[in-house]
């Protein structure tokens, strides 16, 4: 009952505090960003800037090859604005790329240079097509070799060689998230854990500033009850904001139970870390350095999540790595619920193990800064 009354008091205090609304505001901002700013899928079409120095027959053949490469090809005669310059171009847009055909090489080269992109002049030489590539200097040796090798064999022979190579998928059919959905785990971990860490510390420092922790300590209620009431408040706001953001992006297409237990347990874990941290300092300014380092450290798995090529083994020692993967499993169709459940269980056990440390620290430091 004391925990319940303490929680109700925290809820009342929270509803009158800036940090409470900051968390809700962050959730609203995340929803707006994800639903209105972030596209369903990021633009991945490549741009090619081409000048055709060919006679009309070969030019026609080249254009035909563009139409042959894709089922959806559109042609638009348009004006390409590059800074103050305007160029008349034919824009062929396929599913995979935009091909800009220029009527002179100077304009093409100027555009490629300004856009820091690949430019090509295709011309006839020795009864064959000849390609002049205009690279920007940042291309890798590997890319240059690929460009060279493309022209070693003719297209028909190359296709025949490709067809000889058997390709077998080991993973079966994979569910694919849209780019927007793929960002959701990052926002969930940010909103639920990083914000939680900062906000619970802020709540504690507010209480320390008012000295109410000392008054609470001289009641028949336990210090751990006081700390748990803070954790409960954070859990409730994290659940509300996490479900709101997930509903906004996924609709009803996610694992409700998985989200509930992972938000609850990961939030609990991060809150305990925030409590232990705040027990060492009297105010938020003093704690800012350590808080900042901790938040950076906990953010590293998010970088690894966005850059699959950078995923060192030690990243897996950072708990937020499992939060992000867990949140992904929750929103992916046929996600691994066992992973989510196990991750939640580990967070719960770690929280239970750390709770006595937080309580001990607060008992020990009751007369310090509050």
């Amino acid at each position, binding site marked *: *009952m004391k925990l319940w*009354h303490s929680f109700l008091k925290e809820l009342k205090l929270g509803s009158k*505090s800036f940090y409470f609304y900051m968390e809700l505001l962050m959730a609203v901002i995340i929803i707006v960003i994800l639903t209105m700013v972030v596209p369903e899928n990021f633009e991945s079409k490549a741009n090619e800037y081409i000048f055709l120095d060919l006679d009309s027959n070969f030019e026609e053949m080249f254009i035909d090859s563009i139409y042959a490469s894709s089922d959806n090809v559109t042609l638009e005669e348009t004006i390409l604005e590059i800074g103050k310059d305007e160029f008349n171009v034919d824009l062929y847009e396929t599913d995979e790329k935009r091909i800009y055909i220029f009527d002179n090489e100077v304009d093409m080269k100027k555009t490629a240079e300004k856009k820091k992109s690949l430019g090509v002049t295709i011309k006839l030489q020795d009864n064959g097509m000849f390609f002049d590539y205009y690279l920007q200097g940042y291309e890798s040796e590997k890319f240059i070799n690929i460009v060279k090798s493309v022209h070693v064999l003719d297209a028909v022979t190359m296709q025949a060689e490709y067809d000889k190579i058997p390709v077998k998928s080991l993973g079966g059919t994979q569910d694919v998230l849209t780019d927007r959905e793929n960002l959701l785990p990052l926002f969930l971990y940010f909103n639920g854990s990083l914000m939680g860490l900062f906000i619970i510390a802020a709540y504690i420092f507010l209480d320390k500033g*008012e*000295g*109410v922790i000392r*008054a609470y300590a001289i009641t028949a*209620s336990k210090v751990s009850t006081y700390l748990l009431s803070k954790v409960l408040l954070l859990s409730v706001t994290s659940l509300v904001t996490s479900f709101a953001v997930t509903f906004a992006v996924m609709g009803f297409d996610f694992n409700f139970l998985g989200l509930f237990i992972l938000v609850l347990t990961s939030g609990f874990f991060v809150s305990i870390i925030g409590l232990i941290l705040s027990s060492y300092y009297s105010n938020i300014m003093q704690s800012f350095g350590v808080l900042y380092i901790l938040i950076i450290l906990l953010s590293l798995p998010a970088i690894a999540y966005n850059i699959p090529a950078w995923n060192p083994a030690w990243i897996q020692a950072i708990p937020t790595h499992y939060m992000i993967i867990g949140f992904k499993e929750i929103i992916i169709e046929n996600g691994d619920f066992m992973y989510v459940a196990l991750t939640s269980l580990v967070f719960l056990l770690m929280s239970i193990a750390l709770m006595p440390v937080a309580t001990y620290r607060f008992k020990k430091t009751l007369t310090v800064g509050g």
Partner: protein
Amino acid sequence: MIKVSGLKHSYAKDGTYAVNDISFEVKKGEVFGFLGPSGAGKSTTQNILTGLLQLQEGQVEVAGYDVKKIKNNMFNQIGMSFEQSNVYSKLSAKENLDFYAKLFDVETRDPMALLDMVGLKEKANDKAGSFSKGMKHRLTFARSLINNPTLWFLDEPTTGLDPAIAAEIKEIIREEHKKGATIFLTTHNMQIADELCDRVAFMVDGEIKLIDSPKNLKLQYGDKVVEVEYVKDNETIKETLSTIIVEDKAKLKIIIDNYEILTMHTKEATLEEIFITVTGRGLV
């Protein structure tokens, strides 16, 4: 109600002690004053007694509980009025008391009655954050009574209050004492200690220099003289006469019988003067 034996506490843990081997007892129903200047070790001792500071050395028993193994039940019997107000500024005065009332396992007092007692009834629904320093202090004082404590710790209960309010607070303390509460009063205000305490302890540099009742201390350290100011032959005369020496007593009688007395005072030592005599230190 309180038993302290060989209590030591060091913040630096380098052999220097904020509280150095003190022992005392507070009997049930007693008002015990803990007096001394800032930095004497009063607050450290009080914080150990209330569990706010962990016991390092010595034995401390409060309300029958060993402070080394504090049980939450102990706090059902304890009230504490802090020197610095510490209330939830975003809650109203009544909400503050309502909340604390729910943290005890014993019957609690009516928050409105407590607010009325400290003159805050009209402000019951105002946020504590809008209160003046004195009002916050009164709210903190009222909160300390919410669980009807049998052992009541008061840390500078009248500091920062205007004289009229301070007099009311002193009256409340007397009333609670009459009801049987044991009171541990920490202060550097000798006047309030003199008025309220059954016994006082003088503390300086972490050590208790003396424990006795104010009355005994005055008898022991006060001068047994009378200062009298009277008019003789149109001239104002001031004399100091002993109340023990026979000649002085006779002379005093003659003055009273024959001349117009302007002022007459017994030269009783104040607690502050006694403190300075005993400890060789002032109170600031």
